[in-house]
């Protein structure tokens, strides 16, 4: 057979032909360009339009940034140094660097204190953000708020120690009583903490702050980007537990508690933050006893916390609603009571679902801290629009300052949202 075949066919290739390289146009960058940029005529038009936009932006911005001047001490000098060339006067940033970051009233010899607090913030936040770190670091996280408070405000160290003592006492009482009933533990803990604070309040001598290791800084001296960071961190931290409580209250079967939570949440979500800040700046003082004066920072913290906790409550409510009913029923059938079921079964899952939403709220809240400039606080926007742009030297340097503020916010907010996406992938246990 093979002979016949061999005879009837002149040549039979015995080896496989090596695959030919694809045509030039279907490979490498050309193929990528054709598929991704010039697939159809309409697409090509879009590409050209996009290229034009990019060129417009870059041709304006790049020389402006590259020609930037960093070392003059006023706008006039900067204009002279630029000599008619389009360029930025970044020297306003170098000259007013401290004012932009710390405000104009924070004592300059103490700048290390908020800086250290910021560095410690990263240390304290790390074990919360990354689960692989040793759990023991959480102890530092728990102590951090007290350290940060002391570093930034200064004054007698007794105040943060007393506050910490109250928390520890509360936690101990809670642990002792919670075995009996969650309610006993919860209320017992709160009462214990308050007793410690009240008693401690009498013990701390009135003039303790004067001879303290760190000089006390009143909170109206806070300013600049530091103020935005502090408001953002404090209010988000505070509003998560309040938000959880509100969300649970709104899901509650007790009509009165449900009603209180619904009214609160809907009211807060229905009004703009700026009206709440007006409340803080012009109204809230009337609601406290005449002799106690809450400073503006604290009033703003209260209002922003209320604001964000209402939004976080709605996000968590979404998480609770997304859980299959079987989870609730399973918890019931195991004989867990309500606090146990919530702590052990429902909330861990609901919070996991809610993380992207909570992070969105946190980012939004951080951006909204700029609104305090409207009520006369000198955060970074307030500093730019007030003392810096009004000064004789820097009257008219808008873009450098606004650009700087934008970059700061972009770095923080983009960083947080990237972290949230990473976390979402990490926590996606159900699809494995």
């Amino acid at each position, binding site marked *: 057979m093979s002979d016949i075949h061999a005879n009837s066919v002149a040549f039979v290739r015995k080896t496989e032909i090596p695959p030919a390289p694809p045509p030039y146009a279907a490979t490498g960058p050309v193929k990528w360009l054709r598929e991704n940029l010039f697939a159809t005529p309409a697409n090509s038009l879009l590409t050209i339009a996009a290229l034009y936009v990019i060129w417009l932006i870059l041709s304006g911005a790049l020389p402006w940034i590259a020609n930037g001047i960093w070392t003059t001490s006023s706008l006039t000098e900067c204009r002279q140094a630029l000599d008619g060339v389009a360029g930025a006067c970044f020297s306003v940033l170098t000259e007013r660097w401290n004012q932009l970051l710390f405000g104009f009233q924070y004592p300059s010899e103490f700048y290390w204190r908020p800086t250290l607090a910021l560095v410690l913030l990263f240390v304290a936040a790390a074990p919360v953000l990354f689960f692989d770190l040793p759990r023991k670091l959480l102890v530092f996280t728990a102590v951090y708020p007290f350290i940060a408070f002391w570093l930034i405000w200064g004054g007698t160290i007794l105040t943060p120690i007393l506050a910490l003592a109250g928390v520890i006492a509360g936690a101990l009482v809670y642990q002792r009583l919670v075995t009996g009933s969650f309610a006993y533990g919860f209320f017992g803990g709160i009462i214990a903490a308050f007793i410690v604070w009240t008693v401690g309040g009498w013990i701390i001598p009135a003039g303790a702050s004067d001879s303290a290791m760190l000089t006390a800084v009143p909170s109206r001296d806070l300013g600049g980007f530091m103020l935005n960071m502090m408001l953002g961190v404090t209010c988000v931290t505070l509003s998560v537990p309040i938000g959880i409580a509100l969300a649970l209250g709104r899901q509650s079967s007790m009509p009165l508690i449900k009603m209180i939570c619904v009214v609160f949440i809907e009211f807060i979500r229905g009004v703009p933050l700026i009206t709440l800040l007006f409340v803080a700046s012009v109204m809230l003082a009337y*609601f406290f006893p005449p002799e106690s004066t809450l400073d503006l920072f604290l009033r703003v913290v209260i209002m922003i916390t209320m604001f964000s906790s209402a939004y976080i409550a709605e996000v968590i409510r979404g998480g609770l609603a997304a859980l299959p009913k079987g989870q609730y029923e399973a918890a019931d059938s195991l004989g867990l009571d309500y606090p146990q079921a919530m702590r052990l079964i429902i909330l861990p899952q609901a919070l996991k679902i809610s993380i992207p939403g909570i992070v969105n709220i946190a980012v939004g809240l951080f*951006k909204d801290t700029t609104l305090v*400039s409207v009520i006369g606080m000198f955060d970074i926007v307030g500093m730019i629009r007030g003392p810096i742009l009004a000064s004789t030297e820097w009257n008219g340097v808008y873009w450098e300052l606004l650009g700087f503020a934008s970059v700061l916010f972009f770095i923080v907010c983009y960083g947080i949202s990237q972290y949230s996406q990473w976390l979402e992938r990490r926590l996606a246990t159900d699809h494995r």
Partner: protein
Amino acid sequence: MTTLTDPPQGSFRLSMLINDTRYRSLTFQAIALLLLIVSIAYLANNLFANLAAAGLNIAYDFLGTPAGYDINQTLVEYNSRSTHARAALVGILNTLLVAFLSCVMATVFGVLAGVLRLSNNWLVAKLMSFYVEIFRNIPVLIWIIIIFTIMTAVMPAPRAFRGDEPEASMLLGLVAFTNRGIYIPAPVWGPGSLVVVATFIVSIVGVIGYRRYATNLLYSTGKLLPTGWPSLAILFVPTILMFYIMGRPIGLDIPELGGFNFRGGIQVGAPLIALWFALSIYTGAFIAENVRAGIQAVSKGQTEAASALGLRPGRVMKLVVLPQALRVIIPPLISQYLNITKNSSLAIAVGYADITATLGGITLNQTGRAIECVLLLMLFYLTISLLISAVMNVYNNAVKLKER
């Protein structure tokens, strides 16, 4: 023979209030009610004590007194002798105006960016995600200030238009971009213009009727009528014809430089533009994400099934993908509209006379009635939000998947 006794009843112990599920919820509610009453009483007591100590009272009479200040952009008749209530009305209308304009423009930006972000074109998709990330991660207040600064510091002053060789000139001789705003021609309604407008309205009705007819024809006979060009023709041809038949009754009042400013035409103030544009472009970035999520939420099987039925790509989008995507897009879209309305209160940063700037700003400052003004302000925004939420609930119920 009444030997029957009550079933043994455990005597009531105080601890049952917490440990017995029958009483526990009552206990908690009682505690909550008590706390609520105590805290409200505490706050109210402080309020009245403070007000009494300061010799103040809560009264709303000031709303009826002359406001005494002028407002630069008003939709209704207003002067400095009008009342504070009237000033508040001007503010309300201005809030609604900027909110409406921003909602429309934000939707346009958002839909464009959201669709383009899914484009096959790599460059365009990247450019759009760049837009979304940049605008979402920088506070809206900074955007408002940036755009306001562009309006006031970069645009030419009206006096730049003066002289024989002006530094700036009007676009097409019709529109003037100045640092006080944009001046556009205003229509002048001459006699007979009513007929033209009426014709236009009739044309709109005609277009709707024609489209209905085309759909009915398609469903009953399967015949496909073209809709695009005929609609346009019906919309414009009769109106334009009527415009010339009536002897061009609608003219244009073109803004002219006179005195310090342009006169005539319609002035769209710089604060309004800054607020409008900043809110639109900022919220547009969020809407783009909603639109993208909505389109991606429609499973690929739907598109493939539609194609398998022989529908062309345009019809696949129109008849299959969009109706399903809209169900996902519209609820967050409405809450973005709500956000726009609330964010419009930032008008105060650029001096746009919205409700926060008139009632919550100047009136509050001039009368010193802080509590009253802030309460009214909150009441207004609350009403708007509840209205928008109500609309959203109606919509959600209408499009809810009918579960059987």
